[in-house]
C-alpha cells in the first residue's frame, strides 16, 4: 500500500508515492534518480549512504522515506553551487582523497556536517571522530583527513546554507 509523500531534497520538493518500507536511500536513488548516495551495505555500517537531514549526518539506508517528510534532506548533489565546487570537493580533488570514489559522497557529507558546526577549526582527532562511521577501502584515510583539515584551516565556517552561522 503506497502513500503519497512530499520530500524536500536539495531545496526541491518532490511528491512521490512510496511503500512504507521504502528507505530514504532507495527513494533518492530509485525514485528521484539521485544516485550520488551509494548503497554499500544496507545496514548502517559503511556510511556510503550518508546524507544530511536537517543538517545532521544521517544514514539514508536506515531511514524510512516517510520519516523525513517536512525535513530538509541534502545529498552530495547539492554541494556544488552553479557548477562551483564546495571547498571540500575542491580539496578532495587536490589531495587525491578519492580513489575508487564510491565512499566519497558519504564522507563528504559527514565532513560538511563537521565543518558547518562552526567554532574552532577541528583538529585531526575531531576529523577522525566525525568520519569514524565512513568506511574507505582504497586510500588508507590519510589524504581524506588532509583534505578536510586543509579546508577547516583555510575557511571560516559558513554554517549550513540558509543559516547565519554560529
Amino acid at each position: 500500500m503506497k502513500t503519497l509523500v512530499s520530500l524536500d531534497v536539495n531545496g526541491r520538493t518532490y511528491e512521490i508515492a512510496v511503500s512504507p518500507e521504502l528507505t530514504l536511500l532507495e527513494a533518492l536513488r530509485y525514485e528521484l534518480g539521485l544516485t550520488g548516495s551509494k548503497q554499500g551495505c544496507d545496514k548502517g555500517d559503511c556510511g556510503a549512504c550518508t546524507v544530511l537531514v536537517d543538517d545532521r549526518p544521517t544514514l539514508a539506508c536506515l531511514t524510512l522515506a516517510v520519516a523525513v517528510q517536512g525535513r530538509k534532506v541534502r545529498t552530495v548533489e547539492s554541494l556544488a553551487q552553479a557548477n562551483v565546487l564546495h571547498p571540500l570537493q575542491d580539496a578532495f580533488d587536490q589531495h587525491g582523497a578519492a580513489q575508487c570514489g564510491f565512499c566519497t559522497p558519504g564522507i563528504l557529507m559527514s565532513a560538511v556536517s563537521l565543518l558547518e558546526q562552526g567554532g574552532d577549526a577541528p583538529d585531526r582527532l575531531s576529523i577522525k571522530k566525525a568520519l569514524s562511521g565512513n568506511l574507505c577501502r582504497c586510500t588508507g584515510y590519510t589524504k581524506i583527513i588532509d583534505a578536510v583539515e586543509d579546508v577547516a584551516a583555510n575557511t571560516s565556517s559558513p554554517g549550513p546554507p540558509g543559516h547565519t552561522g554560529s
Partner: protein
Amino acid sequence: MTHSQKTPLHRPAPHESCYLHVKGEARYVHDVPPPPGLLHAALVTSPVAHGRIVELDVSAARALPRVHAVLTAADVPGVNDCSAVIADEPLLADGEVHCCGQAIAVVVAESLADCRAAVAAVKLRVEALPAIFSSREAVAAGSYMNGVHIIERGDVQGALARCALRFSGEIETSGQEHFYLETHAALVLPEEGGTYKITSSTQHPSEVQANVAKVLGIPRNRIVVEVLRMGGGFGGKETQGAHLAAWAALAARHTGRPVECWMNRDQDMLFSGKRHPWYSRYEAGFDAHGVLQALDVFTVPNGGWSNDLSRAILDRCLFHIDNAYFIPHVRFEGRIARTNRPSNTAFRGFGAPQGVMIVEEVFNRAAEALGLDPAELRSRSFYRDDEEHNRTPYDFPLPGPRSQRIHEELMESSEYVARREALEAFNQRSPLVKRGIGYQPLKFGVSFTHSMLNQAGALVLIYSDGSVQLNHGGTEMGQGLHTKMMAVCAHELGVPMGRIRAMNTATDKVPNTSATAASAGTDLNGAAVHAACVTLLARLRPVAAKVLGVDVARAPDIAFADGQVYIPGESYETSFDAVVRRAYEDQVSLSSTGYYRTPNIKYDASIGRGKPFHYYAYGAAVSEVEVNLLTGEHRVLRTDILHDVGDSLVPSIDRGQIEGAFVQGLGWLSCEELVWNDKGFLLTHSPDSYKIPTIGNMPTDFRVELLQQATQPDVIHGSKAVGEPPFLLAISMVTALRHALASVRPGAAIELKVPCTPEAVLREIERLREAVTVQERQHELTT
C-alpha cells in the same frame, strides 16, 4: 624562444575522475539509469556445503506474477561453465553442489522483491554429503586439486643438519574479504541480431566476454563488454564478476529484455571467494652467524571448491617465500586444497603475502630464540649484488637488489635503533601498556606468472580539433591507472592532460586483453599507449615540418610539448591543433593502435627454473605499536615506509596506493576475521560483523616516502608497479606486536596467531602468563 618542456609525467595529478566522484556524478554499474523494460536477476543458492540435488522444482516460481523466467542448468544454451582457467566451475549447479551459496538457479523478475518471492517459491531439496573446510582437513584427507609445484635448490636436509639453530613449525594465515565498496554488478542489454552489450564491474572485460560467449554458445564478436569504473576491485573482480554477467546474459537471452544482476553486501560476501587461507609446515636452519641457510616448506592454500586462479596464486606464493633473502638451500612444495568453501580467488598480493609470512615467522622466531634485533638479523640474509648471494630459488640472478640500500636509509630516517632501545626502557617501567617496534623489508616480482598474459593493447584517436580519445586494455578501479595512462599519452603527444579523454574500457576497442591485475596495469598498458603515440608522432612529424615551413629532413628535430610544436632553440613554432588540422587536410591517418609484450620472461614449473618476472619492486617499513595487556587492544602509533616505485609516473597516485595497501594489510593481519559455522556457512557476511580498518585504525603518525634515484630500466619511463607490493609491509605490525609481547615473559616463545585481533592478542598474553606460572612451578619443584 625557450620552452620548459612541460610534461605531466613525474608530477602529482588529481585522479582523472575525482571531479565526478566529489559531485556524485561518477557512475558505477548500479547507477546507470534503468533501460526500458529492465528486469532483475537473483539466485537460488545451495543451503549446504556439499550435497546432491534431489529435487529442484521451479514450476511454482515460474507461475508467479511479474516473474519472467526461472533458469537452471538445463536452460544454458552453450557450455555450463564460468571458470577462469580450467573448465571446472558450472555456472549453475548440475546434480551436485560444492559450497554454501553456490548458484543453482536464476530467477528473473520485475523487481528485487519479485525476485525474492520467486526464490522462496522454488522447491529445492539437497541431500547433504560429507564436507571438508580447511587446508588441514584437506591435507589429512588428501583432498587436493591438480598438480604439485616444487622449487628446489641445494641440499636442504644436509644443510639443516649442519645448522647451529634449527627449528620447525606450522603457520596458518587467514582469509580476507575484499570488501570493495561497490558490490558485484552487471547489466546486459540484448541488441539486434542476437548481440549483447554488457556493462560489468570487472577487472577482466575480455574474460567476461569469453565466458558469456561460452555460456550462450555464440562467438565473442557478438558481445561487447564495457567497464565504466569499479568501486574497488583488489583482485575480487578479476574472475568472479563474470558470473553475474553470465547469469544476467542468460536471463536476457531467455526474456529478450535488459537484465541487471546486482548483489547487495550480504549476497556478495556469501557468494564471492576470498583471499586464500593458508596452511604451511616449515623447517628452518641458521648458521652460527645468524644467516638463514636452509628452509624447507610444505604449503597448502585453501582453494575452495573450484580452481579459479589458485594455481597461479600458489605459484606466486612459492616465488615469494624467499622475500628479500638469499637462502642457499631451499625446498618449497605447494599443493592446493580442494574444500567446500566458495572458490578463493585473487586478492592484492596473490599468494605473496602468505608466502612471505612463512619466512618472516621464521626470522621472528629465530631473533627471539637468539635474543637478537629481528631487523638486524633479517639484514644479514639479504640478497646482495654479487654472484654468491643474488640467485633466487628458481635460479634467476637478481639484477641490483635494492634491499640493503632501502634498509640503511629507513633505519636512519625512522631512528629505528634508538627507538627500539627507548621502547624497551618504556616497557620496563610500564606494567600494563607495552610497546614494540617491527621492521619489514619486501621484494616483489612484477609480471603475470603465466607469461602469455604479459601483453597489452591501446587505441589512440586524435580528432581534427586536436582533442584525443585514449583507449587501453586496463580497467580503472580507483588505482589511478587512467590518470597514469593520460599522463603517458599527454607526454608522448605533447599536449596538456586536459586535451585527453580516457574512455571506458571496452572489448570493441582493445580485444583479447589480460586482467588488470598483477600490479602490471601501468607497465603493460602504458607501453602500449606509448607505442600507439610513437606511431602517430611518426605520421605527424612530416606534417609538422610542412606547417613550420622547414625541410622534411628536419622532422626528427621537432618537439611536441604542452600543446606546442616547435624546433628547440629556433623560432619555428606552431600548435598541436594546427598540425592535426593539416594532417587531416593532407589525408594522414589520425588513429593508431599500440601493442606491447613483456620481453624475455619464461618459467618452467616442471623443473622450477626460469625468469618469471620482468623486474622486482622493493620497499621496507618500520611500525611501532602499543598493546594494552588487560584487553589485548592495540594500535599503530607510527609507521615509516620507504618504497621503491622507480621513477614514479604520478607520485600522488603512487602514495595513495602505498598508504591504502598498507592499511589493507593491517586489516588482514589485525581486525578482519572471517567466521564460518560448522556447516560451512559464512557468519560474517556484512560489515556489522566483519571489520575492515576504519579511520581510527590507521597509524597515528604515518610517514610514506618514495625511494629517490630509483629508475627502473626497460619499464615505461623508468617507473615500477605499485598496486600489490606495499600490502606486505603491514607484516611490520606483527613483528612489532611480538616485540611488545616479549616483555610479558622475556625469553618465552611467542605463538601469536593472525589475524591479531584483540582477542587473539589477549589469548597470547594469557598463555604467556600461564607459561610463566608453569615454568615457575617447575623451578619451585626442582629447587
